[in-house]
Each structure stands twice: as structure tokens, then as C-alpha cells.
């Protein structure tokens, strides 16, 4: 039992240990230089990421409250990788920031929460993880303490997420009332799709939809993204989204199997809404963070298309797409984070003529955007192709056509950025920026990922082998 405990909860324990180490560093000494701290942290995260690949076992703990499978490990590894990259990218921003350690402590505790959430086998455990992954986030959204926008963003996040979790809980309570169990493995037997359960499910769905910012539960997203520090934004838009999606998929496919027909239609509706609204808002944006917020909303719409496929291909494609989405989005955010950290410029107009001064950054951003737009040969193409393909498996081609057409609209605004970078003239372009090793490394990693993942088919095959359909 106790070895099991250590092995099965390896990921969580590692993160927890790191958190404690950081706390001790904090307590022990104030004279550590920021750079040193950052290096230590990044090394720790790297080890954490690497450790994620060893000594993996499947199993459950605490009476199914906590369960680990290959898929879950994969997901946690992905999250670890993302966190590592983000922390590398945050370097430029943090290296002259006072509260580095707090930042990491909070950040990692949210990661911990996500891990619990992902491997939760029980609604209670799920709820705990969810809150653990949300509340600290609100805190670090406010991490630029003196910035008004930052605190406004944090306020919006905390209030609306508290509200959403309130509704989520209400749903859970109703579900409990209707079924008498909170256990994922037992719930399906009790589900028969009566009105109460459906309502409970809708509340639950809304809770998830809020987290992965699906229209009409998405409105917090743009503001929070815009307000918070870029690194936090990228964390929000990548890590937490991904984590919630992982859970969402597994909950849908495992727990709410009996309601499949209902949620298929719901997802269809929501995804159409999400794609359209996301696109329509993204077209107009000038602030790149806000722009990426809406673009990520649109991406969620596409992901819902994949999920609604409700087949093995569905899950596989979603996870595969998320993996690619990680690299693409982090690539884009990496550049934006770097630029805004060193110049404070965040709008599209500032990026005009970027190519003249910073070709490297421009290419990184461009390729990432192309990948987000799903243009070959970037991996985004494969991701999107498989997503839509999974959705098409259901045979609803009107839906697929709408999705395909939305891809065109999204292409438009991605190209708008590219146009700004390459074609538009600008009298005071962003001056030539020296890039530190760490962020550069992160960007290169992203680009390599974007370019290569599509062609390395074993990745997809592996994910496919782990995933499962209805």
C-alpha cells in the first residue's frame, strides 16, 4: 500500500515537494538573488518533468478517490512540460520582480490542484482539485500588484469563478441527490436522463464550460487574459484549459455515458456558438493578449467539435490537438511575453514592421500563429484535421461545414497579425531586442514541437492506443 502510495501519487508528491522546497528557500534566506532562484526553480521543474517519465504504475487509491492510468500520466507529463516552458518564458518578466518565490509557489499549487483533479475518481476530490487550481490562479493574476488592470482581472476571475463553482456545486448536490453517489465509477449506473439529472448535468457542464471558456460562459476570459501578466495568461490559456479539458473529456466519456445523445447535441450547439462568437470578437482585437484570448476561445470551439465525435478518435484527437496547441500557443505567448516584458508593448500596431528588427521573434510568432490557424506543414494542421475528422465521424456534415468555414475566419485574423509583422510599415518599430538563453530555448522548443510533431506519427498512435471511446 505505502509504496503504491508513493508511486501512484508520484506527480503530486513531486510538485508538493518542490513547493515545500521553495517555501523553505523563502523562509531560510532573503539574500538569494532572483536569478539564482529562477535557475533553481527551472532546474527543479526540469527534473520534475523528466521524473514524470519513470516509475509509472496504474492503480487507484483511497477507495477510487484517486486513480492513475497511462493516459493520466501522459496528461500530467504534458502539463509538466507546459509549466516548464512557461516558467522559462517568464524568466524575462520575473528576473526583475520581487516575489518570484511566491509566484512559483502559487503557480505550482495550482498545478498540484490540476493533478488531483485529473486523477480524481470522485466528485469531491474533483471539486477540491478544481478549487485548488483556481483560487491561487486568481492570486497570481493580480501579481503585478501596482497595475490596475491586473487587479481588475483578478477580481473578475475570483468572483466569476466563485460563482461558477457555486453553480457547479449546486449541480453536484443535485446529482448527489438524484443518485446518491459521488463516485465516478458508480454514477453511470444511476443515470437515467431524467429532468433533475439533466439539470444537474447542465450545471456541471456550465462549470466546465466556464473553465474552458465556452460561449456563453466565456466572458471572463478576455478581460482576465488582458489584465494578468503575460506568463499567467499563457498559463491560464494553456495549462489550466488543458487540465480542465482532460477532466471534462474523461468525465463526459466515463461518467455521463448514458446521457451521450443529450450532450452530443449540447456540445454541437455550444461549439458552433463558441467558434462563431470567438471569431467575431477576435477579428476586432488590437491587444494581442486579448486577441489570443478570443482565438483560444475559438480553438475551444474546435476542440468541442472533436469531443462531440465521442469516439476513440475523439479523445485521441483532442489530446493530440492539445499537445500541439500547447506548443503553438506557448510559442505565440512566449514572443508576446518576451516583448511585453522588455518593452511593455502589447498591441498589434506595435508589432508592425517587427520583421525588420527582430526576424527571429517574427518567425516564431508567425509559425505559431500558422500552427494555430492549422496551416501545413505546421503540426496545427494535423491537429485540426484530426479534430474535425473526429467530429465528422458522427456524420453531421452541416456542423462540420460550419466548423470548416470558421477556420477561414480565424485564418483571417491570424494572417492579420502576420501582415502586421511582415508587410506593414512602422515609423517606430520595436527595437532590436536581445533574447536571454532561457526564453530563446523555450521558443526553439516550441518551434521544433510545432514543426515536428505532425510528422512523428508514433505520438498520435501512442495517444490513440491510450484513449477510449464511448
Amino acid at each position, binding site marked *: 500500500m505505502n509504496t503504491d502510495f508513493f508511486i501512484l501519487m508520484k506527480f503530486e508528491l513531486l510538485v508538493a515537494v518542490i513547493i515545500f522546497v521553495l517555501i523553505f528557500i523563502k523562509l531560510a534566506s532573503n539574500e538569494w538573488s532572483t536569478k539564482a532562484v529562477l535557475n533553481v526553480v527551472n532546474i527543479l521543474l526540469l527534473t520534475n518533468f523528466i521524473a514524470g517519465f519513470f516509475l509509472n504504475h496504474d492503480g487507484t487509491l483511497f477507495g477510487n478517490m484517486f486513480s492513475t492510468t497511462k493516459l493520466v500520466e501522459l496528461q500530467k507529463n504534458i502539463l509538466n512540460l507546459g509549466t516548464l516552458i512557461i516558467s522559462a518564458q517568464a524568466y524575462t518578466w520575473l528576473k526583475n520582480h520581487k516575489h518570484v518565490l511566491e509566484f512559483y509557489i502559487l503557480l505550482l499549487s495550482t498545478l498540484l490542484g490540476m493533478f488531483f483533479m485529473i486523477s480524481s475518481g470522485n466528485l469531491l476530490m474533483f471539486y477540491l482539485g478544481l478549487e485548488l487550481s483556481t483560487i491561487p490562479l486568481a492570486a497570481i493574476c493580480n501579481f503585478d500588484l501596482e497595475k490596475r488592470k491586473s487587479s481588475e482581472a483578478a477580481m473578475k476571475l475570483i468572483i466569476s469563478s466563485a460563482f461558477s463553482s457555486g453553480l457547479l456545486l449546486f449541480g453536484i448536490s443535485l446529482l448527489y441527490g438524484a443518485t446518491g453517489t459521488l463516485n465516478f465509477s458508480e454514477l453511470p449506473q444511476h443515470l437515467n436522463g431524467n429532468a433533475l439529472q439533466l439539470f444537474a448535468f447542465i450545471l456541471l457542464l456550465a462549470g466546465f464550460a466556464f473553465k474552458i471558456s465556452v460561449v456563453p460562459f466565456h466572458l471572463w476570459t478576455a478581460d482576465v487574459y488582458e489584465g494578468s501578466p503575460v506568463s499567467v495568461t499563457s498559463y491560464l490559456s494553456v495549462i489550466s484549459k488543458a487540465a480542465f479539458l482532460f477532466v471534462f473529456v474523461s468525465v463526459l466519456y466515463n461518467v455521463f455515458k448514458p446521457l451521450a445523445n443529450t450532450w452530443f447535441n449540447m456540445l454541437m450547439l455550444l461549439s458552433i456558438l463558441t467558434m462563431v462568437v470567438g471569431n467575431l470578437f477576435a477579428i476586432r482585437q488590437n491587444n494581442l493578449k486579448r486577441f489570443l484570448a478570443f482565438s483560444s476561445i475559438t480553438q475551444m470551439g474546435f476542440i468541442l467539435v472533436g469531443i462531440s465525435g465521442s469516439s476513440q478518435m475523439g479523445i485521441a484527437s483532442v489530446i493530440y490537438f492539445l499537445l500541439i496547441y500547447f506548443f503553438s500557443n506557448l510559442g505565440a505567448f512566449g514572443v508576446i511575453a518576451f516583448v511585453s516584458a522588455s518593452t511593455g508593448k502589447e498591441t498589434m500596431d506595435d508589432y508592425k514592421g517587427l520583421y525588420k528588427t527582430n526576424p527571429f521573434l517574427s518567425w516564431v510568432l508567425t509559425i505559431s500563429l500558422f500552427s494555430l490557424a492549422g496551416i*501545413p*506543414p505546421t503540426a496545427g494542421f494535423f491537429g485540426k484535421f484530426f479534430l474535425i*475528422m473526429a467530429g465528422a465521424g458522427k456524420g453531421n*456534415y452541416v456542423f462540420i461545414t460550419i466548423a470548416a*468555414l470558421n477556420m477561414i475566419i480565424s485564418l483571417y485574423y491570424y*494572417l492579420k497579425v502576420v501582415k502586421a509583422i511582415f*508587410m*506593414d510599415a512602422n515609423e517606430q518599430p520595436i527595437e532590436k531586442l536581445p533574447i536571454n538563453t532561457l526564453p530563446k530555448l523555450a521558443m526553439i522548443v516550441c518551434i521544433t514541437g510545432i514543426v515536428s510533431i505532425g510528422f512523428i506519427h508514433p505520438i498520435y498512435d501512442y495517444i490513440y492506443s491510450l484513449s477510449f471511446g464511448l
Partner: protein
Amino acid sequence: MNLSLLILIPLLTAIAILFCKGLKQVRVVALLGAVIQLFAAFFLLYAYSNERAAGNTSQMLFQDAYIWFKALKIDYHVGVDGISIAMILLTSFVVLAGILVSWRQERMSKEFFFLLILLSLGAYGFFISLDLFMLFFFLEIAVIPKFLLIGIWGSGKKEYSAMKLALMLMGGSALVFVGLLGLYFNSTFGGTTTFDLLQIAQMHIPVEVQKIFFPFIFIGFGIFGALFPFHTWVPDGHSSAPTAASMFLAGISMKLGGYGCLRVATYLMPEAAHYYSPVIIVLATIAIIYGAFATMMQKDLKYINAYSSVSHCGFVLLGIGMLTQTSINGAVMQMVSHGLMTALFFAAIGMIYDRTHTRMTVQLGGLLKIMPFISTVFVLAGLCSLGLPGLSGFVAEATVFMGSWQNADTLYRVATILSCASIVVTAVYILRAVGQAIMGPVNNTQYLSLPDAAWNEKIAATILVIGIVVIGIAPFLLSDLITPSTQTIIEHTFNNISFK
């Protein structure tokens, strides 16, 4: 031979370009790649005709298949038949010429050539892939470079044109995408769905399904092939693009459309092709006539050629829509001929523009006195486009007409007659352009000092002219190459017709 070379060579070239320093290295590398590719293409032709001569009657030769995404039955599967080889040859000609024409591309030369090569890579891949996923992959690869090429190095309202082109083409590919998925999920080959072109061809897709997805795929590719009314990217795109880009655009990309319509839409969904052929005919005829008349009104040389491309590509779609062996032959020939001819045209226009910095026919004039070589090339291109015997245009159009007339149905007859009528209009606008720009007195005396074509431009033009003349004088070379392949397509089409 190993077809993957055709993808590999441009790929390596592109990568090599990334490591080059300065225009000199870059262009040499690019040229080298293009030349090698040309040789590869000719060797392919040689090997192919040997195989055929040796009595190898299988539909696709030099096939080469690896499993790519096992779970989804997506394979890396390449192979060629006569049509693809014709297209590959066309591409390699145009690419070589394009690179030579942009020999003095000072600004951001590395990116420029990189994108050109990438574009050609897409085209080559498209023409040899037998797996619909691959096909789509390469189709989209060939789009975005155009956006950058036009947007960065273009002229006029380049951003607008670039954006328009990218969006419309991507819209087309989105339709194709939906259609392909439809094919995929309705193709149960040996119990599993597949993207493999040949396998899908072997199984019989239900007619009602075909009727749903044929429009998606045909219109999707049709947008690439300037199908009326989705042709509006053509004039803007071509006119704003830099010379080489418009050569590629008109010479190669628009052929992707025609090829797709033939290889995917018509070949895989024969009943639907027959069902919809009247619509296609009507649209194509409109494109031909109306493109021609619209051309008549243009004053900008590039617009003239762009609109005439709309009209000429109409012949391709007409030939495909007519669904007779001869007409499809003609369509393929028209693709090749138009590719070479329009590339030549754009090359000439580009050379003129580089010197005079205007493309307005009224401002030019008497160029024959100033730059005889370029003017001769221009006139040659013009004559080819108005279908002068001895040049490729005539052969292609004659074949299309002859094939189209084989359909006794009145609508088809009318369509054919109208399309024939376009040759008169073509003569009108070509001769107007020639008369205003090339002949006549010299309007602008400071042009008198302008130089004639430089060596690279001469070579580029010569290459294309050779292509045009050879096809024009010895069309049997081309027709013998493609006929067996078109035959398989048309036979397959007719074998599947249940209601015919």
C-alpha cells in the same frame, strides 16, 4: 524511380536556402534545385515511357506507400500516371523560369526564394500523392507562401489582394476538406474507411452520398481553378503579385484546381459528375465568355492576362465537365498549355514592368522598337493564348472543342459554340494589347534608352517558349502521354454509371 525524390529535392533546396548568405548564394542554390528537379522530372518521363513501353499497364506507376497514421488509415502513398507527369513537367518548367526571372530579387531574397521553393514543393507533392490526406496537405502547403509572396513583394493594393487570395483559396480547401471527410467516412474498403485514392476508386460510393459531396470537392477545387463565380481572387492576386509569384500562381496553382477536379471529384464520384455536368458546363461557359469580355475592357497588362486566365481555365473545367475522353484530354492539355503560356506572359509583363514601371497599355507603345526580344516573347505568348496553330494553345483548345462537340445534347452544343466564339474575343483583346503596347509609335521617348532582356530573362523565356512550341508542333507527344490515363479515368467513370 523513387517518387519521393520529387518532394525531397525541393525540400532540401528550401532547407539549403535557409543556410545561405546573401542573394548570390541563395539564387544559385535555388537555381540548382530547380534544374535538378527539371532533370528529375524528365528522367521520370523517360522511366515512365519505358515502363509503359515495357507493357506495364497498371494505372499508377512507381507507387510507393508507407503507413503514416495507422489508426486513421492515413498513408504516405505516391504514384504517377501520364497526367501527373505532364503536370510535374509543367511545374518544373515554370519553377525554373520563375527562379530565373527573379534572379535580381534583392529585397529579402532568402525568404523570397524559400517561399517559391516551398510553393513548388506543395505543387509537386500534390501531383504525386495518391492519398487524399496527403493531397490535401500539399494543397494547403501551396497556399500560404502565395500570401506572403504577394503581401511582401507585391505591388499595388498587395495586402488586400494577398488576404483575399489566401482566404478564398483556403475557403476552397475548406470545402474540399469537408468533401474529403465525406468520402472518407463513406468509403468502406475492406471494412475500414480509407483516404486512399485508388481504393476509394475501386469501391462504389452510394450515388446520394456522391451527390452531397461532389459539389464540395468540385467547387473547392474549382475556386483554385477560377471557377465562376469564385474567380475574383484571380485578377487581384495576379496583378498584385511579383512576377515570379504570378507565374507560379497562374502557371501552377490554378492547375491544382483543375487537377483536383479531375482526379478527385470526377474520378471518385462519376455518377455525381454526370449528374452535375450541366451545371459545370454552364459555369465554365460563363467563365469563358464573360472572362473574355471582361478582359477586353482591361487596360492593365496583368489584369488582361489574369482575366484571360479566367477565360482559359474555363476551358479546363469545360473539358472536365463534358466528360468525354477527348474533352478531358483537352482539359489536361489546356492545363499544361495555359500553364506555360500564362507563365510566359507574366514573365514578359514583369520584364516590361521592371523597365518601364507601368503596365498600362496606353502608356506603353512601340516596345518592339525598344526591346525586341521581350516584345517578341510577349507577342508569342499572345498568339499562343489566341490559339495560333503551331503553339500549344491551339492544340489544347481544338481538343477541347472536338471533345465537347461529341456530346450531342443541345445544351452542350450551345455551350461548345459559345466557347468557340470566345476565340474571336480572345483575338480582339490580345491584338488590342499587342497593338497598343508592342506596336505603334513610341509614346514615351525616355523608354528609348531601356535595355532589352538580360541573359537570365532570355533563358527563362526561352525555356517556356520551347515548351509551348514543342507541344504546338508535336502535340502527339503530350497526347500520347496522357491518353492512357484519361482513358482509365473516363472508362472508370462510365463503368460506374448505373443510369447510363
